[in-house]
């Protein structure tokens, strides 16, 4: 589904960590965790998948599509196939939880009827029906991240990219978020997550890719956090 072919990335100004000859494949319905120290290149790797950044050499494929050869005008429709979740949530502060989720559907050009039907479903999946009309500043970190997950899944993407989704959360909220991601994965969506939380990895018991200094140093089918 996602295929990295000998991808390298070098930043001349050192503002982000680069990648060295990365090759790996993610199959449909997989749950892949990418672990590594800060600066190992985890975030750079995810940015390649959503076409936020271009590789210096090599290619990244989504199915048979070379992601970095998608014309600029087609990028929005490509990005709609991918749901994204970030450490800092990236919610629109002037919109309620409901509106934040609905916005992703509006941007997608969905009808009002579809929005009215799907947004409550997505909020129910992350167990936030009762907070639908609260603004982000009225929610806890865990609740904000669940809103972000609801937004990521509401367009029924093929794949969810989660960059340190539990990085700002306390242990209980972390547990809830991981459970939700697993539930989404069980429902058939591919999940690629970066983290450096050992507990999270050990609990999921799925494939773990370990990175260091821009290289993949381990790739275990049912991994433990080893560094």
């Amino acid at each position, binding site marked *: 589904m996602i295929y990295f072919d000998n991808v390298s990335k070098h930043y001349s100004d050192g503002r982000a960590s680069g990648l060295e000859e990365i090759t790996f494949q993610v199959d449909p319905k997989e749950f892949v965790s990418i672990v590594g120290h800060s600066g190992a290149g985890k975030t750079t790797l995810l940015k390649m998948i959503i076409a936020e950044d271009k590789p210096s050499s090599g290619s990244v494929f989504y199915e048979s599509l070379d992601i970095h050869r998608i014309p600029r005008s087609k990028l929005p429709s490509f990005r709609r196939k991918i749901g994204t979740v970030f450490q800092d949530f990236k919610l629109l502060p002037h919109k309620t939880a409901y509106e934040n989720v609905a*916005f992703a559907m509006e941007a997608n050009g969905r*009808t009002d009827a579809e929005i009215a039907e799907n947004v409550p479903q997505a909020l129910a999946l992350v167990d936030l029906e009762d907070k639908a009309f609260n603004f982000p500043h009225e929610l806890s970190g865990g609740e904000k991240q669940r809103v972000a997950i609801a937004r990521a899944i509401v367009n029924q993407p093929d794949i969810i990219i989660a960059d340190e989704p539990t990085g700002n959360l306390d242990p209980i909220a972390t547990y809830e978020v991981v459970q939700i991601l697993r539930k989404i994965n069980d429902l058939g969506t591919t999940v690629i997550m970066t983290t450096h939380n050992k507990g999270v990895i050990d609990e999921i018991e799925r494939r773990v890719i370990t990175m260091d200094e821009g290289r993949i140093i381990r790739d275990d089918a049912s991994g433990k956090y080893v560094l």
Partner: protein
Amino acid sequence: MLTGLRRIVRAGFVGFWRNAYVSLASVFVMTVALFVIGMTMFVDELLTTSLNTIQSKVDINVYFVPDASIDEIDRIRSSVAALPDVEAVTYTSREDALEEYRARNQDNEIALQALEELNENPLGATIAIQAKETSQYERVAQYLDEQKAQEEVGAPVIDVINFNRNKDSIDTLTAIINAVERSSFVVLIVLLIAATLITFNTIRLAIYTSREEIAIMRLVGASNMFIRGPFMLQGVMYGFLAGLLTLALFYPILIWIGPETAAFFEINLLDYYLENFREIFGIIVGIGVVLGLFSSTLAIARYLRT
């Protein structure tokens, strides 16, 4: 498509209200810019009107000798009126000329007494000739000079043709007004550029406060038009409101200075404003809307680069 448009419009209005202070600042800055542009337009109108007034006051006066025969005067009068360059010919008879003189010198005892001393009317008939264009006076004057030259010696009809005496001052005045009009055009261009830059920067600032929102929109796969649309609409709204505000500002100001301009330039700017309101509305609000749209489109562009 229609749903998308509706959402863009709604997002535009919501954005306008949620950033009320930034919106207000942008509207005020644009108002100042439009106000200056409007003022320049009014000044230009004043100058154009006064040029026209002065030009319409230019005429050629032909003074006939007092004992010129009516037939001769009529002949010259109709031949001049038949010239293609001539707009109008006004005839003043000897009697009328006397009446005018009396009326003009009502309070001047000496002048009236002097008139009494003479037993007959010392004034000749006159005709005043107006050409269609200032530049055509030259030809009319030439024609009259020829007429005068053809007169029989000892029996003159035309006494004085007074065009040549005014010619220099008319030319000078025309040159001055043209120069002023030309420089006011340059000033208008410079002001327009300044207004565009100021407006552009203000709107850029307004959009800068939304940069994170724009990044999030891109992340959830919003198309460029979906992101850009609300901001462009806001730019149009700024311009439209600033235009209305400018027009509203002009009204009391023109009530105040209208009588002054009427006295000095012979045009009441308030009347001009009210008579041409539709046109002025179109220009001021139009410039505002175009300026707002142009500035916001330019300002948002840098946040949409991939």
